[in-house]
């Protein structure tokens, strides 16, 4: 990795970043991302999916909801064989990206929405949905690790906002006339009774739900709770007295010993939901609050741009339903 770029290239890039006015090799401003294209619902089999292309990389994220015993929740797998073997990137352990996604996103999705059958005395193991989020890096010709993180979070967020969980209805054996007493009206709303006539098989005391059925078909369902607060990640690459967004591999290796990257996650409401620091450089303490404030602004601009793009896509899809697939028309 040390002999990846020549000293002449790295010093030229560094001088460009630190000069006034700053000059980057592709003419971008310091706080400008390369053009990003975000697409939602790109896979028909997945419960939620998204594709983010641009900024030198290509992520495809799919979410599959599976029913299983336990409390449910989110599980993340990030598959990036290209990033591991790329000649232009320092190797990132795949577990790091999965772990970051999991620890920063799963607290925002309340667990109760995943429960299908709550635990009962007769069936102490609850049944619930587990969302398996798989992110696949399709290509990364010119993305630095910090850009990969930003685009991965964007793709994961878009796919989680796109996810729909099929609604379920618990089924119980009809136990007898007593259980239909009006005292349990509110609770019985959730329970559909299996048989139409009398005498079901189970004669347990309480209406224990033992099975469930789906109310929705494939692409219908309920959106996830907590989706409004899902954050985007912006990584500020700090070098010397300035900072910039969306580093290319050359820029990220321009001055490793004095540069560091600060990844900040912001929700639409402006709340800071997580941070991650990387790099060998130090950041002056007095700059931290202003860096966080800048990051918040960049995050809000990014979210606005993405929402606009998705709104345009939805309008187009609504007006002229074309075939969906991995390739946008």
């Amino acid at each position, binding site marked *: 990795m*040390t002999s990846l770029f020549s000293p002449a290239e790295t010093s030229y890039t560094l001088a460009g970043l630190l000069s006034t006015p700053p000059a980057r090799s592709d003419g971008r401003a310091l706080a400008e991302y390369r053009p990003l294209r975000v697409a939602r619902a790109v896979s028909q089999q997945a419960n939620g999916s998204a594709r983010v292309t641009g900024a030198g990389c290509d992520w495809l994220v799919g979410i599959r909801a599976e029913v299983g015993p336990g409390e449910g929740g989110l599980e993340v797998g990030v598959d990036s064989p290209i990033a591991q073997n790329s000649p232009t990137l320092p190797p990132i352990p795949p*577990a*790091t990206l999965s*772990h970051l996604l999991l*620890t*920063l996103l799963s*607290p925002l999705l309340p667990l109760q929405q995943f429960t299908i059958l709550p635990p009962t005395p007769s069936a102490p193991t609850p049944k619930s949905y587990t969302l398996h989020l798989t992110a696949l890096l399709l290509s990364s010709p010119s993305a630095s690790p910090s850009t990969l993180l930003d685009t991965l979070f964007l793709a994961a967020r878009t796919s989680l906002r796109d996810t729909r969980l099929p609604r379920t209805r618990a089924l119980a054996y009809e136990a007898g006339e007593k259980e239909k007493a009006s005292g349990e009206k509110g609770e019985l709303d959730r329970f559909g009774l299996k048989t139409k006539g009398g005498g079901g098989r189970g004669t347990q005391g309480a209406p224990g739900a033992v099975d469930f059925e789906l109310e929705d078909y494939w692409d219908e369902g309920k959106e996830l709770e907590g989706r409004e607060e899902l954050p985007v990640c912006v990584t500020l690459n700090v070098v010397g007295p300035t900072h910039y967004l969306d580093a290319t591999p050359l820029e990220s290796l321009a001055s490793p*010993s004095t540069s*560091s990257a*600060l990844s900040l996650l912001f*929700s639409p409401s*402006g*709340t*800071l*939901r*997580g*941070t*991650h*620091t*990387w*790099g*060998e*450089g*130090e*950041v*002056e*303490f*007095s700059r*931290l*609050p202003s860096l*966080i404030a800048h990051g*918040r602004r960049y995050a809000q601009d990014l979210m606005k741009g993405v929402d606009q793009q998705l709104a345009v896509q939805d309008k187009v899809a609504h007006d002229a339903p074309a075939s969906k697939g991995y390739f946008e028309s």
Partner: protein
Amino acid sequence: MASALFDRRRINGPETSHPPLYEDELSQPSTSTASAARTSRAPTDLRPIFLKTGLITAASGSAYLETERTKLAVAVYGPRQVKNAPYSSKGRLNVECKYAPFASATRRAPLKDAESPHLSTHVAQALLPSLRLELLPKMQLDVHVTILEDDSGEHGLVSAIASTASAALASAGVEMKGLVVGVTAAMPSSSSALPLLLDPTSAEARAARAQVTLCALPALGSVSELWVSGALREGEEQGVLEALMRAGRDVHGVLVRALVEEAEAERSRSEGEGAR
């Protein structure tokens, strides 16, 4: 009947086991203790720190930290040569954090659950900006951390380990730009009136809505790691960071005192030997 652990030649214990329940634990529901206000110290007070270096003689440098009920030991081996890797002009830092099986409330199996790569990543990131790795080509520094008791939660452990490892590295004679200190703050959930709690215990950490760990070099006024998890509202970060930096300077004083004591003890020991 034939489970994988059944050994017919030995007396086998029960297949599953659970920790015992004590009567006084039963009477306190766990949720109420978390929201109880801190009684033994002020919200911006740290727990008293005991730090001693040089306890592990086989290692190049070592440090032991104890703050009330958190205890950890750090051993530094190196700088030593990297054997089977190609030449690299910069040294490598390897951090390995392991929990002792008895460190937390539930037992961790020695080989499966004990190691924590997540903690190791954060600690390595905290230490990296302070080390002059370009002076150690083809060398590696191994930092081994053993957590003997954990009453701080993951955030608190990262900050404690960062401070202790920095003292151990200094005790090993590794050249550094400055000592790294780590401090953690927890923002309690809105039911409590307090704005923030420094150096939270694990119960306070579990009940918090956000935790912030800052690892900094107070001597240089710079930050090596900032780890936030939870929800930090707009405008809160300024106050939290300043409180953390102030506390970091106190911890720095403790580290410096421990290192100076070790150096003086070493000097008086060598003078005593020279006089004989």
